[in-house]
């Protein structure tokens, strides 16, 4: 029984003062080119179903409480994946009056994906790392090894 779930990963996304660029790339993970559901991964609607909470943004003051409560609502084991330079605490708004130390830093991210925004492939790599850390098997293919679909400009 437990074996059949080794590839699954529920991802709950949490936006903490992001410019929305990182969200666009998180969304791209669900487009037909990246489609993470083939890896057994899915974006879930509730923290109750989450193995990973992906976070973006420098941590806006107004989101801090909601972010902490979302994290507290997730069952263990659950780890935080910081997506983007802002979440890593080194984005364009580090030091702004209503911005914090980086959502990933404040929430104790186990994996950090850099980029502004990181590419969908980079986020997939981060999810792969998270998957391994949490004791799940990694998806079969490394995204970097995959050829691009035909007729597409380079990614």
């Amino acid at each position: 029984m437990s074996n059949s779930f080794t590839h699954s990963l529920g991802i709950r996304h949490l936006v903490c003062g992001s410019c929305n660029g990182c969200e666009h790339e998180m969304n791209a993970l669900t487009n037909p080119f990246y489609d993470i559901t083939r890896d057994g991964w899915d974006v879930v609607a509730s923290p109750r179903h989450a193995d990973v909470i992906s976070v973006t943004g420098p941590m806006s003051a107004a989101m801090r409480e909601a972010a902490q409560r979302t994290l507290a609502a997730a069952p263990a084991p659950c780890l935080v994946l910081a997506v983007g330079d802002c979440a890593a605490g080194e984005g364009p708004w580090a030091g702004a009056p209503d911005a914090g130390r980086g959502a990933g830093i404040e929430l104790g991210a186990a994996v950090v994906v850099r980029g502004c925004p990181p590419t969908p492939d980079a986020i997939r790599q981060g999810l792969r790392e998270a998957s391994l850390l949490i004791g799940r098997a990694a998806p079969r293919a490394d995204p970097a090894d995959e050829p691009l679909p035909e007729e597409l400009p380079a990614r």
Partner: protein
Amino acid sequence: MYVEIPLERPDLFDDVLRACSTREPLGAYATNERLNYLFVDGGAVCNLCAARDGADAGESVARSVPLFDWHEREMRDTHGVELTGLPVSRALFVRDGVVPPALTAEGEGVTIIVVGPVHAGIIEPGRFTFSSGGETVVHLDGQLSYSRRGVEAFLEGCDAFAAAPQMARVCGACSVARSWAYARAIETLAGVACDERTEWARLIFAELERIYNHVFDLGSTAAGAGYGYGQTQGLAIKERVHRVCAAAGGHRFLFDAIVPGGVRIGALDAAGALRSDVAKLRSATAEFLDALFGARSVVGRFEGAGRVPRETARAFGAVGPARRASGAAIDMRAVLPYGAYRKLPPEVFSETAGDVAARCRIKRAEIGASFELIDRALAEFGTLPPPPPQRFAAARGRITTVTEGARGAESVSVECDARGHLTRVHIISASYRNWPLVLRAMEGNIVPDFPLVNKSFNLCYACADR
């Protein structure tokens, strides 16, 4: 063009009210010294302004012209401008952990449904409070500002050139439109003009940004009607646009593609390859749009949903496709022509129905027009890449510049000192202008249609919150 009309403070509010009936308002902002009410008038941005001399008593314009509601509350909350008769008095922003109370309807059978600030999908945070009688929404209250970082205050004191990457990252989905407005502000203050190839390149970037946003909006609206093909294919086309953006401008979202003085070094260095990528993209997009708009069952859901009458759109200050779908052919590329749009004016579409269907039809038409503009710009552009950005010293002054982003007028007000440092930046985004209208558009609609109606606007939060 930017014109300031200095007024005595007692006259300001009467003049602003008069201006509202003859000119197109852009919004208002305060500095520590002055109050500024911005309008579009005869091809220029016109600033009716007055010095703040101690006591701030003046009469709220929002009392008669609702579009100033958020602007005047923001002036109070960030700069302590106290106006009498503000129609809504609660704070605009969440601050120090205090969330302003939602305005709800009262009465027998009214149910209150609160969602947010964390939403179920991958979307920005906001709290929506529905007052509904059965399934029908009687009132919708929106509380934004959860993405507020304090952008404007943070940029005060920054070098005008050093602030450009930040201006590109206030909001991801309207980055190009804002960077272009900002670049024009800094260039105009210094009296610097860009060469033709740079201007063509900027137009191409801005239209690519419009295309990926409109395609995303249409796909998301289709999703709101439960149409999987529309959503999936929309996301696929959007991905292809991002790859074209990366090839053309060095970034999937074209961050930093436009900078004061020019465009990113290396941008458009392979115009030939770009032409063929764009041609393929154009035919794939046309196929998607034909299929989407050919799905009668889906388009049927669009019709009549989220209707915004012409007068409501004007009163609440709607901009962009939201305004054009409600009977007014207003587009900043045509009203305040800038850059290469002076040579290549865009076709401006308008509709009268004001519903989800009309907004979708406008976006469909605009996608076609954007491809046309890109084709013509690429033809004019030739093959040589644009020159590297010009270097110049930022000059002292005040200005407001406006571009037409995917969601409408993107306005940037800049005040710069003699050392080339910013002393005040104010951003009025198309989303900030349109949000109050989304809330009104839901009245009389059913709660489950919120995704449909909301996505037909598909507004950003980050640039409204800043």
